[in-house]
């Protein structure tokens, strides 16, 4: 056999090859079945572990949701505040605050100039009527108008004197101020 010689009759050789083949098939089948069983164990085991993890995660989620539900009052109030803040923000954004601007205009002039009439002409235009007693103060007014037109006052874009009337002992002037 070692030297390649086989003196067995052909039927016996065939039987031997068959036995060897059967042995090999059995080995392959055992390996194959082991692999199959292992796969089944791994897949079902992994699935079992994942199902357990899912259950744990769901329990945690339920607990968190219960805590959240216990804060329902704060939830509703916070959401409502957020919604209303948005609305009120839009309202305030639309509003033009005249008070502070009127205050600035009044601070413009020296104390001896008296503001008699004040009117919001358009949304961004004021008309002022002022009275002053001395003609020299009129120079201050004209200086202020020039300064506005030069852009020295950030809130106002332009100004012009629309009329000046001279009374017995007073000056009356009308001025238009445009806002930026």
């Amino acid at each position: 056999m070692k030297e390649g010689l086989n003196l067995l009759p052909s039927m016996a050789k065939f039987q031997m090859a068959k036995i060897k083949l059967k042995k090999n098939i059995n080995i392959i089948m055992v390996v194959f079945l082991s692999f199959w069983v292992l796969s089944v164990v791994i897949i079902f085991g992994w699935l079992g572990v994942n199902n357990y993890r899912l259950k744990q995660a769901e329990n945690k989620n339920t607990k968190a949701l219960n805590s959240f539900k216990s804060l329902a009052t704060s939830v509703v109030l916070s959401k409502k505040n957020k919604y209303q803040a948005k609305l009120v923000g839009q309202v305030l954004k639309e509003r033009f605050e005249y008070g502070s601007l009127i205050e600035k205009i009044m601070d413009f002039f020296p104390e001896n100039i008296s503001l008699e009439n004040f009117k919001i002409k358009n949304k961004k235009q004021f008309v002022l009527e002022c009275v002053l007693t001395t003609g020299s103060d009129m120079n201050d007014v004209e200086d202020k108008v020039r300064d506005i037109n030069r852009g020295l006052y950030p809130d106002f874009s332009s100004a012009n004197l629309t009329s000046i009337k001279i009374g017995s002992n007073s000056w009356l002037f009308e001025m238009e101020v445009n806002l930026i």
Partner: protein
Amino acid sequence: MSNNFFKLPDKIFGLEKSLLTLFLTPVILLIFFLISLNLVLIPKANEIGTVNQKIDTVKTNTDKVNEKVKYLASVDSEELQRNAEYLDNAVLRNKKSYLLVEIIRQVANKFDYQIESFSLTPGEIKAEETKKTSIENMKKLPVALMLHGPKDKSLDLVLALEKTLPILFIDKYDINSSGSYSELEMVVSSYYLGDEINVDTTNIALNDLILSSDEAALVEKISSFTKIEENTDTETSEFQQYQRENPFSL
């Protein structure tokens, strides 16, 4: 006969019967494996993926809920309530022009101004009133007023009106002074909320609960405003019927 019927020939397609039976078990096993692979193993392997995704989703949801719980637990409920009150008072709750006049009257009285007359449907503003505003659910309610009072307090009055809750808009301002007395012609308006706010608490994100820096600054700003009580006592008084005798009856 039946035994002969199932009896196989010694050779099938030129191959030994005993040799073929040798492969029968592995072939059956292979078929069984393929069937089990398709019906059991692959579906179960896919199920693992689905369960994994579910775990991730549940964990993400839990984290989000926990974040919200953490935030809500950290919020001062009194401050929340206070903010809600300021925001509730920032706009009118009803379309009642008389309430608006009452609010302006209360502010004016503080500065010795009196309401001489008022009109609830000022002509110029009427069109604007019916016009739909860009702010959802909100409608503008204007009132034209004629006030008189001390000239030196006119600016204080305007500043006070602009720092009043509900938030007031000065749409028209015309002041005429003579001596220390001034006459003020104004159109003041305020927004009122058309519908009740229905808060939908499903699918709330954390950002739906937290005020942004701008919104927080806004609440801070309006908290410095003076709240004027909407006195509705007169609205709720009931009609009283008096039993009086007819003086002309015999």
